[in-house]
């Protein structure tokens, strides 16, 4: 039974890791924490469910289209709303992303209504016996896709020019600009990737949660906690944090009480920031005076 709990913990952990990766990426590249993350996750799921159940797309097609559409939305949001705020005080950006998230959530509610949309998994529901536990095809799919996306992301950073540019901007914006890197485009790209990853997470999670206007919020809060746990500027940290939090959450939910699960993320955030703000894998930054 314990193994079972851990496995579903890894599954949700994988989804958290996906969202946390996008979250950390924006924070590293643009210095912004995206508090509209939850609503972007939700939006991705809505796009997919609409394409699939109302426009007869296949699962694969709706998955890809929804990710692309949400990613594009992320880019648009960056250009329209957050680019003008580059020079503003941090609290302005924080408030702007929160307000954007609320606007997105309300728009979702207006367009799609407040009832929930079930999202059927494209695979069967019969669990597969992998020897030490039972795993559903959806859980395997989640883990597989997450691994694939993480590898893609790794390849992007290590081997493409754009990925290198993003890494440069994350280290030093002014220096990168002086080297001819279009910093604005990097910002847009980071928002685009963040939104695409968030959408993927939403679609992967949808069969487990059902699609509602608030489905992305709780998941994203856990992802925030995971990012902080791993180190908000550490991409490997996002993965480690996500998986760890997923497992711990499930253990707490199973052995203590499910009502405490949301409380766990919040308490964890405060605790980590008090004790070790840079998280497990993060490094401290020193401001030069």
């Amino acid at each position, binding site marked *: 039974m314990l193994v079972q709990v851990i496995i579903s913990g890894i599954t949700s952990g994988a989804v958290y890791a996906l969202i946390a990766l996008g979250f950390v990426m924006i*924070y590293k590249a643009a210095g*912004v*924490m995206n*508090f509209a993350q939850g609503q972007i996750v939700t939006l991705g799921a809505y796009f997919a469910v609409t394409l699939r159940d109302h426009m007869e797309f296949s699962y694969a097609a709706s998955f890809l289209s929804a990710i692309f559409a949400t990613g594009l939305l992320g880019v648009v949001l960056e250009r329209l*709303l957050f680019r*003008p*705020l580059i020079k*503003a*005080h*941090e*609290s*302005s950006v*924080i*408030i*702007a992303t*929160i*307000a*954007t998230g*609320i*606007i997105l959530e*309300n*728009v979702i*509610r*207006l367009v799609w209504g407040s009832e929930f949309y079930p999202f059927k998994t494209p695979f069967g529901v019969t669990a597969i016996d992998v020897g030490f536990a039972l795993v559903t095809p959806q859980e395997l799919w989640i883990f597989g896709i997450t691994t694939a996306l993480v590898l893609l992301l790794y390849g992007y950073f290590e081997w493409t020019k754009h990925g290198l540019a993003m890494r440069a901007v994350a280290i030093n914006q002014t220096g990168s600009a002086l080297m001819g890197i279009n910093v604005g485009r990097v910002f847009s790209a980071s928002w685009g990737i963040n939104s695409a990853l968030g959408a993927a997470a939403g679609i992967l999670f949808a069969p487990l949660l059902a699609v509602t206007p608030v489905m992305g919020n709780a998941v994203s*809060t856990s992802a*925030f906690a995971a990012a*902080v746990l791993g180190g*908000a500027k550490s991409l490997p940290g996002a993965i480690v944090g996500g998986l760890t939090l997923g497992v711990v959450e499930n253990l707490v939910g199973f052995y203590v009480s499910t*009502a405490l699960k*949301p*409380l766990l*993320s*919040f*308490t964890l*955030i*405060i605790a980590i*920031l*008090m004790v070790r*703000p840079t998280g497990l894998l993060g490094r401290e930054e020193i401001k030069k*005076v």
Partner: protein
Amino acid sequence: MTSRIAFVGAIIAVGCLPFAADQYVLYLATLTAIYLMIGFSLNLLLGYTGQISLGHAGFVAIGAYASAILTKHSGLGFGLTAAFGAGLAAAVGFLVGLPALKVRGYYLALVTLAFGEIIQVSIRQAKSLTGGNDGLNVVAPQIPGLALSRPHTTYYLLWVLALFSFLAVRNVVRGRTGRAFACIRDSEIAAQAVGISVTRYKLYAFTLSALLAGLAGAMYSILNQYIHPDDFDFSRSIAYLMMVVVGGLGTLAGSAIGAVLLAVLPEVLRRFQDYQELVFAVLLLGSIIFVPQGIIGLGRYLAR
């Protein structure tokens, strides 16, 4: 000079309103006094000291529930129970200020967000004490000689509290403490260099801000004589942000404008109740991007 005239004018208007207005307008005006307190509270923390607070409704909740529960179990007068609510909120504010010493910006936003949600969950879970999701009926507290269930008395009482709070906050803001707050907002390192203890003043800011919010909560609890966790959720915290941002951060007059806006807007949008949160968020976003100085800033700019 104009501000002094405006101030006196406002006091006269507030004093005379009950004789000219119906029940409903009176209710909104009483609510405005409460929002004014919250506006001062949040402005002090965010506008003057530059510390973001995404869970401010949590402090209001503590004040509301603490004073309501104390009244219920002890029958003490409103003065004492409100002071208790405000004091407890202040103590919690101090505790929330402690992480603020170590983290800033986005991390602080996360901490305050987490705080607000922890309060929410706690209130809903502690059913036996708070009534949980059923809400809590608030006994009309006693002030010797006054029967508080009459809307007029409540109105004047809350506005007197709001007035004294305004005077206190204005004095603090204009003096050495307020200057220290603003210095911390503008440059912590320079603040240290001139001898301002960033630690001490950040804790002052959080404690004082929470005190005011807690008092506002106690005031809120006697308004409808019923409180519910939904009155203090994240949506409310955002509404409070909207109030101070759209009104004008860093100015007390801005809080006043924001308070009126927050009280009146839901009424204007009564038909479009579903759109209320959307309108708030759009106002907030629009203000941050296009009119960061708020309505007050816009007014000053146009006056030049």
